[in-house]
């Protein structure tokens, strides 16, 4: 065990992945609770596909992937909220359109430029080798911004999530706060998908929230519990992935699934007692 920790720290790419991953796990846990409660779970999934498209295009054009993907995904988040708010196209349908279109654009761009290579595979399923040190700086900075904004607006975010109409009546700009949640989610997804992969990142957002809602009675408890569950699952998932030489993203998801099932069992036992 101690040996494993020692080797873990001696590889700088592992350490980088761990630092960024823990921060992303924390961000996605915080935002995930709001998204699940607002019935926006699918936004995470949709945005990750947009991020895949943006990364493929920027790779083909030779731009730095994060700097292109972050603004594009934020724009997509903005559009998704606008579309569902206008009610012209239903929210879930809008997400399906945007996500599959960007996936398709990403795939076409890649096959025209270099063909399906290892990079694309990494974007799909994640890789702990993907982070360069400049990526780490951007990721850490973004995660800190997400966490700080979430704490600062915590009470308003609660009010808007719990009862949007009442919040609006008390003079809270609910549109602005919804947008804040969507933009923070966009940032979290772009940063997290390097490690987790476009196809797996949304589970990082949804699992911890659902898990803690199995036993949580208050909003604060659910937020705290979700953060702890998310960070522990991420660290455990990384360790398992290292120990068994399996992909990190997949191993984090399976760890989350296991904890979710345990919490479900706890709830059943509590109900029966």
């Amino acid at each position: 065990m101690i040996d494993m920790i020692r080797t873990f720290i001696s590889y700088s790419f592992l350490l980088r992945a761990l630092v960024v991953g823990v921060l992303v796990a924390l961000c996605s846990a915080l935002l995930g609770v709001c998204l699940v409660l607002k019935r926006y779970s699918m936004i995470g999934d949709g945005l990750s596909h947009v991020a895949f498209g943006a990364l493929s295009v920027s790779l083909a054009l030779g731009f730095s992937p994060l700097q292109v993907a972050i603004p594009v995904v934020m724009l997509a988040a903005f559009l998704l909220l606008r579309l569902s708010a206008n009610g012209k196209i239903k929210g879930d349908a809008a997400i399906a359109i945007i996500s599959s279109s960007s996936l398709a654009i990403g795939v076409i761009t890649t096959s025209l430029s270099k063909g399906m290579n290892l990079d694309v595979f990494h974007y799909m399923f994640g890789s702990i080798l993907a982070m360069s040190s400049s990526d780490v700086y951007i990721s850490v900075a973004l995660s800190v911004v997400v966490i700080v904004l979430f704490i600062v607006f915590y009470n308003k975010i609660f009010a808007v999530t719990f009862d949007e109409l009442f919040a609006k009546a008390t003079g809270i700009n609910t549109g602005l706060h919804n947008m804040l949640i969507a933009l923070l989610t966009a940032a979290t997804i772009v940063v997290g998908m390097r490690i987790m992969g476009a196809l797996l990142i949304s589970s990082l957002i949804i699992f911890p929230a659902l898990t803690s809602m199995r036993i949580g009675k208050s909003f604060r408890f659910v937020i705290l519990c979700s953060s702890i569950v998310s960070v522990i699952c991420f660290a455990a998932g990384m360790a398992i992935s290292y120990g068994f030489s399996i992909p990190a993203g997949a191993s984090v998801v399976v760890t989350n699934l296991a904890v979710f099932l345990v919490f479900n069992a706890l709830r059943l036992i509590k109900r029966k007692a």
Partner: protein
Amino acid sequence: MRLLECSNVNMSYDNIQAVKDLSFYVDQGDYLCIVGENGSGKTTLVKGLLGLMAPDSGRISYIGIKKNEIGYLPQKTAVQKDFPASVMEVVLSGCLNRDRFKLFYTKRDRIIALENMERLAISGLAGKSFMDLSEGQRQRVLLARALCSAKRLILLDEPMTSLDPVATADLYELIASLNRECDMTVIMVTHDVSTALKYAGKVLHMKNSPLFFGSSREYAATEIGKKMLGADIDD
């Protein structure tokens, strides 16, 4: 003292004119019931009063209060039942309008929340989860939240829907006592005309444009009032 005055208000949504040439006023200490069938423009009027929708023409003026200082109890559908929130968290969220830039609750907010829970006899529920409460308890919690954000006026939108008869009677008594003892002005949108008339001093009957506005005693004597009360008894 006058709190709220609507003069010649017209409101519409999706090209449907929901409120037509409506004028009425609310004085401090009033208990006003807004009645009317489905689609008579009540909900649109509520949005107008709360400042969530601007009138096409006419004026809604507030005297001595701001529009975000109306304590609002939304219709039942607006609040999710399976939301993990403690009663204290819900009630405190009513205090957020006290300062536009308020980010964190102060000690004073907590005192206000506790006082309002005391008023509604739900202090014992503070640590409980909102989703574990009965319908009647939930309405009390949401009413406490409304009182936290209210300066002198509360606006209740169909508060009795889905309550059982005992809980309904309790809530009517509670609202009446807030009106009498705490000098809280009440506007209530309701279907239940006959019970509402027992407590309300004034009635506004809408069918997009106002059919009646005046005291509930006068209303009971009018043709339309008799019809509404009669229809209620027939049910």
